[in-house]
C-alpha cells in the first residue's frame, strides 16, 4: 500500500477510537433524554466527578481536605491507605447512585412539567454545582488515573503494519494506543450489556415504557421516580466508564468535562433519542474530525480545526435532515 493510504488509515483508526469515547458520553445523554426528556448538560461534569472520586478513593484522599484545612487549620490530606481498583470502582459506582438519587429527589421531581429549556438550564446549574463540589471535595489539581489498563503504543500492530508498505519505502508502522483498543472493547461490552438489560429484564422493559409514554407507564403502575433514579444511575455509570477511559488517557482535570460539548454534535448527528445513533454519530464525528484535520485542516487552514469541525458538520447535516440520522421523525401539529 502507498504511504499516504497507510497514513490515512492510521488517522481513521485513531479517529474511530476517539469516536468511541464520544459515543460513550453521548450514550449517557440519550439514556436520560429518552426516559425523562431532560437534556442533561451535566453529563461531562458527571464523568469528571466520577473520575475524580475514583482517583480520590483509590489513593485514599480525605474528602474536602482543603476546606477542612482552611477552616480548622489542620493539615490533613490522605488517610494513608490505598484501595484496590475493583473495590474503588464499585465504591465510585455507589457514589454515582447516591448522586443520581439526590438529583432526582431534589431537582428533577420539582421540575416536572417545566419547559425543556428550563430543565436544560437546571442541568447547566447542576454542572456548575458539581464542578465546584468535585473540586472542593477532591482538589482541582491534575491527577493521573490508573486502574491497571495497559497503555502506550501497540508494538504488535506497529510491526505488522510496517510490512504493508511498498518495497523501498520507509514506513515505521501505525501507532495505535493499547488503551484505545481496550476502551473500544469495554464500550462494546457496555453497549451490549445495556441492550440486553433494556430488552430482556423487567426493569429494562419498564425503562423503555417510560421512554415511550410517561402517562401510559404511570397508569400501568410503573414508578417514574424509581425509573428516573435508575436511569440517572446508569448514566452515572456510563459517565464513570467514560471518565476512566478519558482520565487514563489524558489525566483527570477540568478539560475532561468539556467532552460533553463534543458529545452534543454527536447527538445532533445521531438523533437525541437513538442509542445506535449515538454510537454511529460518535464514530462519524471522531473519524471525520481527525480526517479533516489531517487532510485539510493542518495543511491549509492552520490546524486546530477539531474545535469546530464537528459542529459545522452536524449543522450542515441537520439542514438536510433535521431529526438526525436515527432520531424520531419530528411531527408537528397546530
Amino acid at each position, binding site marked *: 500500500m502507498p504511504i499516504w493510504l497507510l497514513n490515512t488509515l492510521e488517522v481513521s483508526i485513531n479517529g474511530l477510537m476517539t469516536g468511541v469515547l464520544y459515543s460513550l458520553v453521548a450514550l449517557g445523554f440519550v439514556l436520560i433524554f429518552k426516559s425523562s426528556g431532560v437534556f442533561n448538560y451535566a453529563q461531562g461534569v458527571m464523568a469528571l466527578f466520577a473520575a475524580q472520586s475514583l482517583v480520590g478513593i483509590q489513593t485514599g484522599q480525605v474528602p474536602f481536605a482543603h476546606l477542612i484545612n482552611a477552616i480548622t487549620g489542620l493539615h490533613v490530606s490522605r488517610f494513608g491507605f490505598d484501595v484496590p481498583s475493583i473495590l474503588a470502582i464499585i465504591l465510585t459506582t455507589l457514589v454515582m447512585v447516591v448522586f443520581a438519587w439526590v438529583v432526582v429527589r431534589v431537582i428533577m421531581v420539582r421540575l416536572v412539567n417545566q419547559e425543556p429549556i428550563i430543565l436544560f438550564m437546571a442541568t447547566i446549574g447542576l454542572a456548575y454545582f458539581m464542578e465546584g463540589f468535585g473540586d472542593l471535595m477532591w482538589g482541582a489539581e491534575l491527577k493521573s488515573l490508573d486502574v491497571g489498563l495497559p497503555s502506550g503504543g501497540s508494538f504488535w500492530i506497529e510491526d505488522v503494519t510496517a510490512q504493508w508498505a511498498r518495497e523501498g519505502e520507509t514506513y515505521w508502522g501505525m501507532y495505535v494506543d493499547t488503551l484505545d483498543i481496550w476502551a473500544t472493547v469495554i464500550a462494546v461490552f457496555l453497549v451490549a450489556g445495556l441492550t440486553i438489560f433494556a430488552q430482556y429484564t423487567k426493569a429494562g422493559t419498564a425503562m423503555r415504557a417510560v421512554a415511550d409514554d410517561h402517562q401510559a407507564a404511570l397508569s400501568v403502575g410503573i414508578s417514574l421516580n424509581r425509573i428516573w433514579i435508575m436511569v440517572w444511575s446508569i448514566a452515572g455509570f456510563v459517565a464513570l466508564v467514560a471518565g476512566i477511559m478519558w482520565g487514563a488517557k489524558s489525566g483527570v482535570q477540568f478539560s475532561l468535562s468539556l467532552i460533553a460539548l463534543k458529545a452534543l454534535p454527536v447527538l445532533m448527528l445521531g438523533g437525541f433519542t437513538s442509542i445506535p445513533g449515538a454510537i454511529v454519530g460518535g464514530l462519524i464525528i471522531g473519524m471525520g474530525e481527525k480526517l479533516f484535520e489531517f487532510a485539510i485542516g493542518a495543511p491549509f487552514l492552520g490546524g486546530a480545526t477539531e474545535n469546530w469541525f464537528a459542529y459545522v458538520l452536524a449543522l450542515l447535516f441537520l439542514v438536510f435532515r*433535521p431529526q438526525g440520522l436515527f432520531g424520531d421523525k419530528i411531527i408537528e401539529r397546530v
Partner: protein
Amino acid sequence: MLYREAGDYKTSYTDDAQTFPIKLDRWWYYAVVFVAFCIVPFVLTDYTVNAIMLPFLIFAIAALGLNILTGYCGQVSLGTGGFMAVGAYATYKLMTAFPDLNIFFIVILSGLITAIVGVLFGLPSLRIKGFYLAVATLAAQFFLVWLFNKVPWFYNNSASGQISAPERTIFGQAVTGPNAEPWVAYLFCLIFVFTLAWLTRNLTRGRIGRSWMAIRDMDIAAEIIGVNPLRTKLSAFAVSSFFIGISGSLFFAVYLGAAEVGEAFGIQKSFLVLFMVIIGGLGSIFGAFAGAAFMVLLPVFLKIFFVDTLGWPTDIAAHINFLIAGGLIVFFLIVEPHGLAALWRTVKEKLRLWPFPH
C-alpha cells in the same frame, strides 16, 4: 395601597398605551434614570466602575440582545460569546483602519457587522428547531473563536495574538485606552444601555415584536395566520446580534482594553449571558437587567465574603463560587422558573393589596 392604579385616570389612547401605565412605576423609572445619569457618575470610584458598573451595563446589553432572540422569538442560542467576539474584532479593525472615526459610530458599525454575521448563522434556524438549534449555534461559537485565533489579519499580525484598544476621545474626553476616566466610560456605556433598552421596549410591543412572540409561541400556527417565518426569525437574529455586537464592542474597547479571543469570548460567556436571561426571566426587559445584576454581583459578594472576611484561600473561594452559583441557579429555577421578573410581578401584586389582602 403602596402600589395601585386607582385614581390614575387616562383620557387618551396615548396615555393608555404608554410603557408605564401606573403613576408610581413611571416616577420610579424617572428616578432610576435620573440617579443613573446625574448622581452615579459623581460618586463612582475606580473599583465600583471596573468591578460592578461596567460589567453590569455591558452584560445588560448582551442579555437584552439574547432576550430578544430567546425570550421573545424562542430561538435558543449558545453563540453569544462568538457574536461578542465579532463585535470586538470589528471594533478593533475599524479603530485601527479609520483612526479619525468617532468611537461612537465605530461601536454602532460593529453592531451592524455583527448583525450581518448573526443573520448568516441564523439561516439554519429556518430548518432546525429547539435543542438542535441550540447546538447548531455552538458551531458559530467555536468557528468564530477559531477564526479570530487563526487568521492574523483580524489582530493586525500582532505577535501576542491579542487585540488592544487605542485611545479614542469624545468631546475631548478619553473613552477607551488607559487614560479613560471611570465616569466617562460609565456614561458612554450608560447611553448605549438606555437607548437600546428603550429600543427593545418599543420594538417588542410593535408589529415586529408581536410577530416574534407569535413565532415563539407556535411557529406553525404563526405561519398559518400570515407571519413570515423567514423575515421574523432573521430579523430577531439581526437585532439580537446587533445588541450583542455592541456589547462585545464595549466589552473589549471600554472594559477590557485588551483581549485574547479564547479567554474573553469563550463558551463560558455564552452560558453566562444565557443564565442572565433565564434567571432574570425570559421575555422581560426588567429581567435582563435583574439577571445581569445578579450574575455580576454574585461573584463580587462571594469574593468579599470568603476571601476578604473569612480569609480563605482564593482557590477554595473559586470552587465555592461555582458551587453556590450552580446551586442558586437550580434553586431559582425550582422556586420561580420564570425568573426574577416573575418574582417582581408577584411582589407588585402583593403590594397592590397590602395591607388588606382580601
